[in-house]
Structure formats: structure tokens, C-alpha cells
């Protein structure tokens, strides 16, 4: 699983940092998304998908499958 966080779209609502704190954080200076782990392992699967679905700005994309 490869995760892409579009910082330009991010509105700093903090949903991703709340739902998948091992994968996402927010920048101290403006709350914008920071990707902590671009290729999280399977254990993060559910949380990352929840975070992508809950993002109010639709700023999180997930590429499933063979990408490593």
C-alpha cells in the first residue's frame, strides 16, 4: 500500500492524524498533513482507509496492490 497526501489540498482538519496517527501527522506551523510513513504495512490498512474516507478535503490517495 502506497499513501499519497496532497498538502496543497489539505485543510488541516486533523482527521487523518486522529484516525491513523502512525501514518499521518500535522505540521506544527500550519496544521497541514505530514506523511510519516509512505508505505505502511498491512496492520495500518483499516486506519489509513478510514483516514482517506474521512478527509474533508479528499487530500489522501491510496494506491493498493503491487506498488512497494
Amino acid at each position, binding site marked *: 500500500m502506497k499513501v499519497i497526501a496532497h498538502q496543497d489540498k489539505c*485543510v*488541516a*482538519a*486533523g482527521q487523518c*492524524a*486522529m484516525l491513523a*496517527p502512525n501514518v499521518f*501527522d*500535522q*505540521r*506544527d*506551523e*500550519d*496544521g*497541514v498533513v505530514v506523511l510519516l510513513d509512505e508505505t505502511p504495512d498491512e496492520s495500518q490498512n483499516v486506519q489509513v482507509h*478510514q483516514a482517506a*474516507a*474521512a478527509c*474533508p*478535503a*479528499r487530500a489522501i490517495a491510496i494506491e493498493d496492490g503491487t506498488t512497494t
Partner: protein
Amino acid sequence: MTGHAADAPTGDLDIPNYPQPRSQGCPFAPAADIRALAAEQPIRRIRFWDGSTPWLVTGPDELRTLLTDPRVSADDRKPGVPQWSPAEAAESKTRPATYLNTDGPEQTRYRRMVARSLSFKNANALRPVIQQHTDDCIDAMLAGPSPVDVVPALALPVPTLTICALLGVPYEDHAVFQRNAAIGLDRNSPVDDAQRAMAEIFDYVREFVRREMEHPTGADTICAEIAEQVSAGAITFDTGTFMAASVLGGGFETTANMIALGTLAFLQNPDQAAIVRDTDDPSVIANAVEEMLRYLAVAHASKCRVALEDIDIAGHTIRAGEGIVQGYPYANWDATAFPDPERLDVVRAERNHLAFGTGPHSCIGQQLARVELQVVYSTLLRRIPTLQLATTMDRLQFKNDTRAYGVYALPITW
């Protein structure tokens, strides 16, 4: 609706008035008539107080689509954005540009100046302080006479203390802005009174931004941050002041309503209250808060939108210039998205509610609100396990005509 009516040209009589009050007997449920219409289709025209007939969107998917569509604008300095009251209609045209009434990159720039202070991390760092405020309020309730009204005893002070510290304004002044917010946010307030009340909050906050500009304290507060941005020429004084005033108003009013109305909902659903009271698992409490946010959806009159171009959605065309009203309470009670929506189910798996809206204008303080509600609900239920309503449901007065739904007073005993 009959086939004949549906085929006829849009008859004015088919357009329901909006908003409609929640029923006294069922004060948590969105208005039954509009709910029935929402079950038929996710978008329809409604009639506002000024005779305009904007589109009401009640489908969760349609709301997500429209609120992330760049052809949908929140800029109510332009015509077309529905306004909730005559005072709001007059005020909106004169307001400075902020993250509330701009779109695209301009909105992003404004929003990020304030978002930093309200991030998930910062909100959670405030948890011990919020816990202390909550315990202090409950200590005072237990030491004082019973029954006590939850609104001034707990619901208002906890979020107000928190937001005052975040902003850098003294809590001692709370009577001033709480009173003015109550007047300014009530649709039935005379226009002059509402405008004066809003101006007073604005003037109040302006003074603190001005002081920070003249004598920067370097404090880690929103007023200090905004003063720095104004001094650096990044934003105007009015823009900065209005953003700080919005954080203040939004920071206590909506959360206070969630606390009082949520307390009532727990009292009416003792089995659900027991789940929150008896757990040590923060994720159970967090889930319960998401469910309460869905169930109550107090932001029933949030800022509306206008279509900038023709937009086809759900078999309708929203024409350029037509208004869009977000029916969040109805979306949160959509039976497809939330099975048995009328049931308060604190362990419900579906968490993707719209209580905070969505899109670039989704609630900027939502992480702070979550922490406040998690702390207050769990602490209140645990510390006063014999909590009960000190009146009857039919005597409670509900805030149907204010920007956030709630209960005016909630007498409780134990």
C-alpha cells in the same frame, strides 16, 4: 407526492418552508416533514424566510460531492448565498475576507493561520486542562444546591475557558461575549440588536489583537499569531480580528450546545450512558462522541453556499447563482448511511457523519470539540452516576431558531 404533482411545472405550493423546528416530543430528531422528503430524494428546493427557494441537500454523498466541488462557493459577499436571518444578510456583505467567506487558495491561506492552534496534537495537549476545568465545574455543582442548570454550570464554562486561553482573552469577560453571541446568533433578534451584538464581539476581540500588535507578548495564542500576521502585512487588521472573533464564537457556542443536549440524550438513553460510564477504553468514549455528534447534529444552520456554474447532481441541475443549503442533521439521519438512525448507538461502527460539515470549510475547531466532549461526557457520567433530569421533557425549551441547536436550560439533580 403524486405523479401528477411531480410532472407539473414547479408549483410554489410544493416547496416546503425551511428550516422547520424539531418536535418538542422528539427533540433530537430532525424535523419529521423534511426528513420524509429527504428519504425520497437527496436534494430539493426549499423556501427561506426571504422567499428565496435555494436547494436543500440532505444526501450524505451529494453533500460530500458538492462541498468539495470548486464550482461551489462560500463567498457570501456575492449575491446568491442563502442567509439565515435579515441581520446575517445585511452583515455578510460588509464582512472582511476570512477563511469563512473565501474559496480556493485564498481561503487555504487564511485557514492555515488559525488551523495550527487547533490541530489534533494541540487539541489533545489541552486534555489535562480541559479535564481540570471539567472537574472544577463538577466540584462546584456537587457542592452547591440541587437541582442545578447544566448550561451555566458546565456546558458553557468548559469550552469558554478553553477557547479564552487559546485566544488569549480573559475568561472574566465571558458574560459580555456569551450574551452578545446569544443575541447575534438568534434568527428572531431584531436586526439592529443582532448587528450591535456582533459588532460588540468584534470590537472586544479587536482590542486584544491591537494590544498584541502594539506590545507583542510572544504568547502562544491565536490573538498573538494573528497580530503577528497583521503586523507582517499578510492580512488586514479587520480580517485578523474577524477570524479571532469567529474562533471565539464558534469555540464555545456549538460545543456548549453539544454538552447540554448530549447530557439530555444520555439521560434519555441510560443504557448508552452506562457504556460510556463503565469503560476505561478511550476509543469507546471517542466513538460515543462521534455518535452523539451524528445524532444531535447541532450545527443545523451552518453557512450556506452558492453555485458558480450549472451543476448536475442527483437528477437536478443547480443553476449558476442558485443557493445551496446543507441539511447536515438530515444527512446524519440518512437510513442508508446510518442504519436505524433514530437509535443512539454509542458503539455504532459508522463514524463518517457530517456534524462538522466537510470540504475546505469543515469545522476548524473539530479536534478541540472532540476532546472537550470526550472529557465532559465521560467525567460527568462517572462522577455523578445518579444524574437525573430535574424537570419533565415537555418543560424544556429547545433552540430551534439559533445558529446551533440546543436546549436553553437543563435542570438536573442526583
